[in-house]
């Protein structure tokens, strides 16, 4: 392998380990399942150390390489940090100081990673590294103190089996968790409390209890809990005061084994299986595959067209063979295309899990306690789109924390809880993803916004006075608004909102802002699921091709002209007793109107769906369904009402993709 490929591989691996590390530290902050989490961190750090060392060995064969100094640094820092993590293993909880160190480590390694990726020659600031090492050493003394405190604590493990009552299992589980926690505050559960909150159900719980009490006392307490069927003590010979040692690690392993043996077999094997099937591939390679797949889809459509138009060998056996061959190729092209798109689908977790760290930093920096949460992390979207979202999101989050959320004193005075909340939610909506970011801060002050815009000469005073609420909020997307010092109330919000919008434009997404003064701000992002290949219905209207995404189409029907009714300018007809409004394409697309063909008693209508509405759009010809490669539109033509994008047909001509959501707007306008 070439050196650059080795480095790339190292970076992928590093990214993956850091992501895992990042989400683990998040859980540590929530104080869940502490001991095993530190183990997880240890494994991440150890893996990074291993791969950086092996890469160094390869680099040493070269004379010089820009990345070498950074990789050396990673190897060094992971080596020291590994030892530090060892010392944390004996703890039952982490102090703020220790959590900061965990985060510092990640920051430094991420910094080094960026330097490697971007070929930055300059080494990382020596002071940062020194500071980090100094902090690591400081901690050593505290650890001694802590272990003295812990001297009298004994660690016990119990496996608890519950009465299996199918109906209220989850409720009982919650009670058991709560009761144990009330009595022994630093108990740790497997499965974690998190899994419980996610609504998962299980019959066995393993719990670690640190207490001065003897084992049998704890055991009898557990046995007397409601709904508990059986309590088994897991042998654990070591008390906490013995500190960390090789022996302890072994003991931990036996516990892990014990827990694993307790898990149903198939679950375990499944877990292992999925792990072994993971393969790291550079996105560049996938994009390359997609590019060629897209091309193949177009060629497939072209060949289809060709066979339709040319009837050579017609009626012969050879022709039949040719057609069979073609249909076989077609179905494989379909599979290929589906699989390629699946590869690119990535859950939002990957993005969202990066935020807690930054929010924590902001929260400390601005002295504002923030409660951050997100939901819908398993919602998937094309990786190419996801990758574009980090910067805009970071910007929106910074805005929310710095300018939205008030300082605790102010919040209390307003009757709000002192901690500000920031919540992100992702969910699917047909072929789109909708993300909302809400904060409960002070909201956008429209008056200050207006003043700022007038001051900056973006709008005139009289125009400002006549502006609607929405138009005013729209001002935050204008660069320059709100930077004025006179609008301290929210100076800053607005800077870069223009950039956020541009970024979303680039992936064909959109952004809406709504806000209530003193109650908070809600930002809604609407994103396409994928930018690549979709199924479409090809039609012709007035001599021009139009494509309807299959996700928006119900059916194509012929309606007798005589069945079309008119009421106050609206045309409609009945389909299965449902009133369906008709939109005339020529009118909607502003095309030259044609004379109605009196010989044709029918009107061909495409029934399209958007949200909960159904509309009929007139079409001339219908050519059936095919896979289409959605082209990226230039911003100049993106805004055409009723058109979302376009695709290229087999004969090379351009077909415009209809956006049925715009049809609804037209309807409500009438």
């Amino acid at each position, binding site marked *: 392998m070439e050196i650059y490929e080795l480095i790339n591989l190292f970076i992928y691996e590093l990214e993956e380990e850091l992501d895992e590390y990042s989400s683990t530290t998040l859980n540590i902050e929530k104080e869940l399942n502490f001991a095993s989490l530190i183990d997880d961190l240890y494994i991440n750090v150890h893996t990074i150390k291993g791969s950086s060392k092996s890469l160094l060995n390869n680099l040493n064969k070269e004379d010089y390489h820009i990345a070498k100094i950074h990789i050396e640094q990673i190897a060094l820092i992971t080596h020291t940090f590994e030892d530090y993590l060892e010392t944390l293993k004996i703890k039952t909880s982490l102090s703020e100081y220790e959590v900061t160190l965990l985060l510092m480590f990640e920051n430094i390694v991420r910094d080094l990673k960026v330097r490697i990726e971007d070929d930055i020659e300059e080494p990382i600031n020596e002071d940062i590294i020194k500071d980090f090492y100094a902090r690591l050493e400081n901690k050593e003394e505290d650890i001694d103190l802590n272990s003295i405190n812990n001297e009298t604590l004994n660690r016990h493990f119990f496996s608890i089996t519950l009465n299996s009552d199918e109906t209220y299992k989850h409720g009982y589980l919650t009670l058991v968790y709560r009761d144990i926690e009330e009595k022994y505050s630093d108990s740790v559960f497997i499965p974690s409390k998190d899994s419980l909150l996610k609504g998962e159900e299980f019959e066995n719980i393993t719990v670690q209890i640190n207490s001065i009490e003897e084992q049998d006392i704890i055991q009898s307490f557990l046995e007397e809990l409601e709904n508990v069927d059986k309590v088994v003590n897991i042998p654990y010979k070591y008390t906490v005061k013995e500190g960390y040692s090789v022996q302890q690690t072994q003991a931990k392993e036996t516990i892990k084994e014990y827990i694993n043996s307790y898990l149903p077999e198939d679950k375990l094997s499944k877990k292992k299986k999925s792990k072994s099937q993971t393969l790291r591939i550079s996105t560049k390679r996938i994009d390359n595959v997609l590019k060629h797949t897209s091309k193949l889809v177009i060629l497939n459509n072209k060949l289809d067209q060709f066979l339709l138009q040319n009837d050579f060998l017609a009626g012969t056996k050879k022709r039949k063979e040719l057609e069979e061959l073609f249909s076989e190729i077609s179905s494989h092209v379909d599979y290929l295309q589906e699989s390629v798109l699946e590869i690119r689908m990535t859950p939002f977790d990957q993005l969202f899990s990066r935020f807690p760290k930054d929010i924590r930093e902001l929260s400390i920096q601005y002295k504002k306690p923030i409660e951050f949460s997100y939901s819908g992390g398993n919602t998937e979207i094309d990786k190419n789109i996801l990758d574009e979202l980090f910067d805009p999101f970071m910007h929106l989050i910074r805005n929310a924390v710095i300018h939205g959320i008030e300082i605790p004193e102010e919040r209390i005075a307003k009757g709000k809880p002192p901690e500000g909340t920031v919540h992100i939610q992702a969910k699917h909506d047909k072929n789109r993803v909708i993300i909302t970011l809400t904060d409960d801060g002070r909201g956008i002050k429209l008056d200050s916004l207006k003043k700022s815009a007038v001051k900056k000469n973006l709008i005139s005073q009289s125009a400002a006075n006549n502006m609607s609420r929405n138009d005013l909020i*729209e001002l935050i997307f204008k660069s320059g608004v709100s930077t004025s010092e006179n609008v301290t109330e929210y100076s800053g919000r607005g800077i870069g909102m223009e950039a956020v919008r541009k970024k979303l434009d680039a992936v064909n997404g959109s952004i809406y802002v709504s806000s209530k003064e003193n109650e908070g701000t809600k930002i809604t992002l609407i994103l396409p699921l994928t930018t690549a290949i979709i199924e479409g219905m090809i039609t012709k209207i007035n001599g021009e091709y139009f494509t309807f995404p299959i996700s928006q189409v119900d059916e194509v029907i012929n309606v007798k002209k005589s069945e079309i009714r008119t009421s106050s300018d609206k045309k409609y007809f009945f389909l299965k007793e449902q009133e369906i409004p008709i939109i005339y394409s020529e009118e909607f*697309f*502003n095309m030259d109107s044609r004379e109605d063909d009196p010989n044709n008693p029918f009107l061909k209508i495409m029934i399209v769906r958007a949200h909960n509405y159904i509309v009929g759009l007139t079409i001339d010809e219908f050519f059936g369904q095919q896979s289409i490669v959605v082209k990226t539109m*230039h911003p100049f*033509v993106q*805004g*055409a009402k009723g058109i979302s994008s*376009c695709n290229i047909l087999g004969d090379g001509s351009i077909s*415009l993709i209809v956006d049925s959501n715009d049809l609804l707007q037209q309807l409500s306008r009438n």
Partner: protein
Amino acid sequence: MEEISKETQETQEYVVFELSDEYYCVQINTLDKIIPKMHIRKVPNLPKFIRGIIDFEEQIVPIIDLKERMKLPKTQSSEEFILLFEYDEKLLGILADSIFELKETNILPKKEFTYVSEYVHIFSDGTIRMEDKHFSKSRDSSEELVILLSIKKIYDILYKELTNLGNIRTN
């Protein structure tokens, strides 16, 4: 001022083309390609000066009709060429009636429009006030006025305009 005197030493290359019997030019290094006009697919519900789109080397390229935008008179001359510019990593096409010549000159574009003698082209500095026409109708064959177009400025003006019209999706 220093910069200007420095630039006079250098020769600049321009493509001079015709729109409604008037001469316009662009710096060659801002131009990506010149292609013969091909079928342009109309896109509905857009301002008239966006003639439509073409599929050029797998890219969807919007075609701008400057004659329409600048309210230049309709003439007999047909649109034969499309000038392709790359801006913001995307191609943008501008219709031209015909390509007049490729011109090399070390004469700097002037801010004011002035007439000078034979074979010398005077350029504006790239500002093009799109609502106005700046030139006289009677042209002397020895005195040619060529308006230098700046693709960046055209792009910015159109972008702003389309945004105001709500045609660039910003919400």
